[in-house]
């Protein structure tokens, strides 16, 4: 079985996020890191490989991004991936979620993975949707927010987090699965793994190499346009009811809830 893990280079968590008012895109300058959510996807792949219930032949780290994204791939390899794949092309710049998902799907097609794993969100865009878009293009089932994964007999049994509790689902492969950070604790890459990462194969692809249609990616190929960006409205200040341990306090709370039709 071949597992492809989608990974992304994002601004380091310590960097203050800002929108560039000219491009209306996230300003991605400053220190970068491997998207922390993706480290859980790689760890999940490693646990499948080491668990022995399925035969995992290789784990491939896959990214789309500028030259610097190579470092995210190195980190993914240091965490256990066997090799990596880098889609990089000026034509991709400014791609929205749908265009990015399309491009990644085309890249993945060239690998024919049995399983695509990714983190549930990226730490910068926080769209939570790439998995679904990729799955749609690949015509594979898509599962999101997965926090437990067991493999047996060519099937995966998964638990996914939902608002009402947990879904336990079975999925046949191939599939695209995005994992939540509760699924595991990623390992600490050893020095040997870090030093070895640069020696593992890394393939660089352009849009033409994987048959990406130029008019479906980049700023021009994106079907969404950001018209305006505004800060969220300031929250109304709350009302503090002092707890004086009297019936009156309770009545005040009940009245407040009642007014808002909450009870």
């Amino acid at each position: 079985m071949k597992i492809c893990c989608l990974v992304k280079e994002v601004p380091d968590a310590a960097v203050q996020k800002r929108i560039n008012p000219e491009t209306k895109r996230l300003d991605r300058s400053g220190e970068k890191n491997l998207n922390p959510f993706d480290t859980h996807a790689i760890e999940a792949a490693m646990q499948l490989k080491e668990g022995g219930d399925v035969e995992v032949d290789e784990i491939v780290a896959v990214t789309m991004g500028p030259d610097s994204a190579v470092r995210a791939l190195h980190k993914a390899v240091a965490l256990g991936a066997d090799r990596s794949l880098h889609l990089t092309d000026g034509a991709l710049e400014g791609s929205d979620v749908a265009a990015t998902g399309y491009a990644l799907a085309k890249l993945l097609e060239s690998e024919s993975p049995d399983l695509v794993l990714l983190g549930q969100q990226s730490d910068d865009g926080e769209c939570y949707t790439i998995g679904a878009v990729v799955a749609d293009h690949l015509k594979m089932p898509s599962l999101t927010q997965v926090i437990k994964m067991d493999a047996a007999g060519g099937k995966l049994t998964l638990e996914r987090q939902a608002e009402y509790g947990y879904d336990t689902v079975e999925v046949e492969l191939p599939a695209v699965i995005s994992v939540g950070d509760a699924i595991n604790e990623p390992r600490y890459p050893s020095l040997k793994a870090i030093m070895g990462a640069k020696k593992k194969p890394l393939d660089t692809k352009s849009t033409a190499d994987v048959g990406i249609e130029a008019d479906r990616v980049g700023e021009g190929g994106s079907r969404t346009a950001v018209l305006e960006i505004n800060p969220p409205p300031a929250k109304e200040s709350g009302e503090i009811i002092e707890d004086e341990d009297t019936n009156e306090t309770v009545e005040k709370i009940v009245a407040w809830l009642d007014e808002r039709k909450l009870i």
Partner: protein
Amino acid sequence: MTVIKDSGERSLPTPFTQEHQELRESIRRFVESEIAPHVDEWEQARWFPDELFLRCGELGFLGLKYPEELGGQGGDYLHDAVWVEELARSGASGGVAAGLGAHTGIATPPVFRFGTPDQHQRFIVPAIKGERIGALGITEPGAGSDVAGIRTFARKVNGGYVVNGSKTFITNGVRADFLVCALKTTEEGGHHGLSFLILEKEMPGYEVTAKLEKLGWHSSDTGELSFTDVEVPDENLLGEENGGFYLIMANFQWERLLMALGAVGAMKRLLETAIEYAGERQAFGRPIGRFQAIRHKVAELSIKAEVGQAMTYNALRLFCEGQDALKEVTQAKLFTQRACVEVADEVVQIHGGYGYMREYGVERALRDARLGPIGGGTDEIMKEILAKQYGL
């Protein structure tokens, strides 16, 4: 013309590279999740569990600079530097850092450098796994700064030595499975009569006589040891007989660099703690960080930390390039140890009464830092070395 990199990223300080940065992140995450949360408990218990050595061994942190043939990671001194700085930086207490650091930084290096292949197998291989814990025994009740005054004596007999004497202030001394021990192999001792023997805990006559109580480094066991007719085979002689003084000197540079790195890590952490607290703590209707007295204090402290780092990294670079760095290492050791005590003291002051309490860990940092100007060669000895370097 200066070109500002458009990615907006800062380059890493020399001599570190991206690879060291990744190792740093790995160690940081480990320390933050597996050491820092337990530090208070371990400090109270005056001990951290031996299992921590096993865990660090499993993760490869005890063998960063040793070759893969011995189970190491195949790195070098710079990787070890990252390990030591990051232990302090990410919230291991001085005691935990001292216990792990004595094993990786002072006990195993002489065995690796001067040991036979057989000694590598018996001591380095299990030490890298964390299965056998090491300590370095130089100091004695009557010989501290004056190393040549060592009195523990190894009498030559057929096939080995019989050792009598004692050691004190030995980090890991209570738990150590093996002690890399400096002793006299001639009646006179001194510069030309010292040797190193590796003593093992199981040897009859080897005894831990006390676990010493101290100002700081509470989670580290500092031992007092006594040797009564301990029979040590020839296979445990480390390096040349009567060549021990050279061995002691050989690792001093590295030990002092490690202490400087630890202080640099600790100062950075203290500074962050202070900045955060100064931004949050309110007095007279504003955060205390808005009072000039406090903000200027933070500004001054930041310079101490920065200067300490610059000196230490420079000495480290020279050392790693194989250059004679005696002067720079001595200066870095001297400056950073005192600076760290001063920084810790000021950070306690910024925290007011809370600084004196356990909660924020800054009182511990102050107590832990106080060892710096004493251990690994005192401030006074550092100044003597420096003055000598200038021909005085």
